């Protein structure tokens, strides 16, 4: 009985997760449990984990843990929650109309949106692409302003 999504706190766990997910999209959501938007995202993810299980794995990463700061810095995660997609240890980028293609910021408005995004990533990855376009219309994509610090 799986009552929780897999939560990763150590770098080694994240590493093994990325390496060991073969031929499936790996969805890593970075966030902290106190954030309301992260909880909304978590709700949607929990509902879709089983449906998507044949071609995707979902895992949560706690930003506040020290081990994982390497990844936080590497992916430049400042807004919570942020979701990064991997396929066979390649980082998959997605063009959602925003400036940042490397990750998905924020929650999904509906479960179906999440499923659509994961499917698009999967199809693109199977074709060998490393960047895909987002299948969602722009009104369904949550907007965030990217603030540049010290630039």
């Amino acid at each position: 009985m799986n009552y929780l999504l897999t939560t990763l706190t150590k770098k080694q766990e994240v590493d093994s997760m990325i390496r060991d997910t073969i031929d499936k999209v790996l969805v890593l959501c970075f966030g902290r449990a106190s954030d309301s938007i992260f909880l909304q995202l978590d709700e949607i993810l929990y509902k879709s984990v089983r449906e998507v299980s044949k071609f995707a794995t979902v895992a949560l990463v706690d930003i506040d843990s020290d081990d994982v700061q390497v990844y936080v810095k590497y992916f430049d995660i400042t807004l919570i929650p942020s979701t990064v997609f991997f396929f066979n240890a390649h980082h998959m980028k997605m063009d959602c109309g925003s400036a940042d293609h490397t990750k998905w910021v924020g929650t999904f408005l509906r479960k179906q949106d999440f499923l659509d995004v994961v499917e698009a990533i999967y199809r693109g990855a199977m074709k060998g692409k490393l960047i895909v376009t987002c299948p969602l219309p722009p009104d369904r994509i949550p907007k965030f302003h990217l603030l540049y610090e010290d630039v």
Partner: protein
Amino acid sequence: MATLADSFLADLEELSDNEADSLNEDNGDAEQMEEDVDGDLADIEALNYDDLDSVSKLQKTQRYNDIMQKVEDALEKGSDISNQSIVLEDDPEYQLIVDCNALSVDIENEIVIIHNFIRDKYRLKFPELESLVHHPIDYARVVKKIGNEMDLTLVDLEGLLPSAIIMVISVTASTTSGKPLPDEVLQKTIDACDRALTLDSAKKKVLDFVESRMGYIAPNVSAIVGTAVAAKLMGTAGGLSALARMPACNVQLLGAKRKTLAGFSTANSQIHVGYLEQTEIFQSTPPTLRKRACRLLAAKSTLAARIDSIKGDSTGKVGRSLRDEILKKIEKWQEPPPAKQPKPLPVPDSEPKKKRGGRRLRKTKERYALTDMRKLANRMAFGVPEESSLGDGLGEGYGMLGQAGSGKLRVSAGPSKLSAKVAKKFKEKQYGSSGATSGLTSSLAFTPVQGIELSNPQALANQLGSGTQSTYFSETGTFSKIKRT
């Protein structure tokens, strides 16, 4: 049965005997049951149908009396532990039990005969009673109670029958077409009822005796269904080996009562269940699973009977394990099904699309197929610049379409199947054109080559197919030039 009806008419008029050929069938059965052989037809015809003794002889036979005596003795003695060391066939008690089984079958047949007798006699008084009360013993009891009474409100039938049937009987009696019986006939009928009841009690005694010994005779069957039911099954089957030989579906139906419907009632009459209905296991299963449970019980008890008939297991261990198995199976049936989990989505693009084929698809594809005109336009002749729609190489090229020397003056568009649909939709636009061809067409064409080109009627005949067929790869073509070197 026509002869029987005639005989009753005769009875009504004179109340005399004879017409004994009607009771040939009854007597024939009775003859088989009895020990004394009475095959003489003359004797049968001479028999008095009025006399009960002529119809049922079992109670008078020596065999019957011997066995009943032994049974009573044995019942008084109580159950004694029989020695298992003696081969069971030699055990006198075992022989007695075998005899009891046969006797119980005989008694049952005898009861049926007597029931027929009573029924025939009582028809004059209350003909509808036989269709209301089917069971022979119940019928005998009711007849005895009612006697010659015409008013049924004075008769108390409580306890003999279910109240619904008592009510129906009272109602029918008030409108019956029967007449009171003469005394002697009545006396004979009452005698017959008494005899039926004594036979019934004798059968009960025999069954009790068998039941008490059941633990030793058939321990495995008794372990599964209980001693009482096992005794009844054995009694009805006619012995342990007979029970063992029966297929399980028959064992299931041993003792099944026929439906007795009072009016339109269909309640409480279980179909296809016999003595097994009385077993503890059956009673404790929920009603929805009863049919399955009955089949299971019948199957396992048949197995146990087969083991018992060859004395394969005298301790009853197999019976107990079979019983446990049955209980476990029934438990399993009652388990709720496992909770349904939502099905995960299939992997995208993993299932190839199902391509359809067939005439219909071909026809729809034809509408979008490449036409000959387009084929010609796609090709070009070598070294010859093609014409174009806007002239000078601008616009769409015409390729081989309309080229001089192609043998065709005009390539007609042909009936475009696509346009047929479009034409159907916009019918108004067709109203404008008046005929198939306009008045300005002629068989002359002006080609870029100087002069006028006329179509060669022979060329059409020579050509195979349209100008799209390549002559280079043509199967019927010949060498164009052969040089002698």
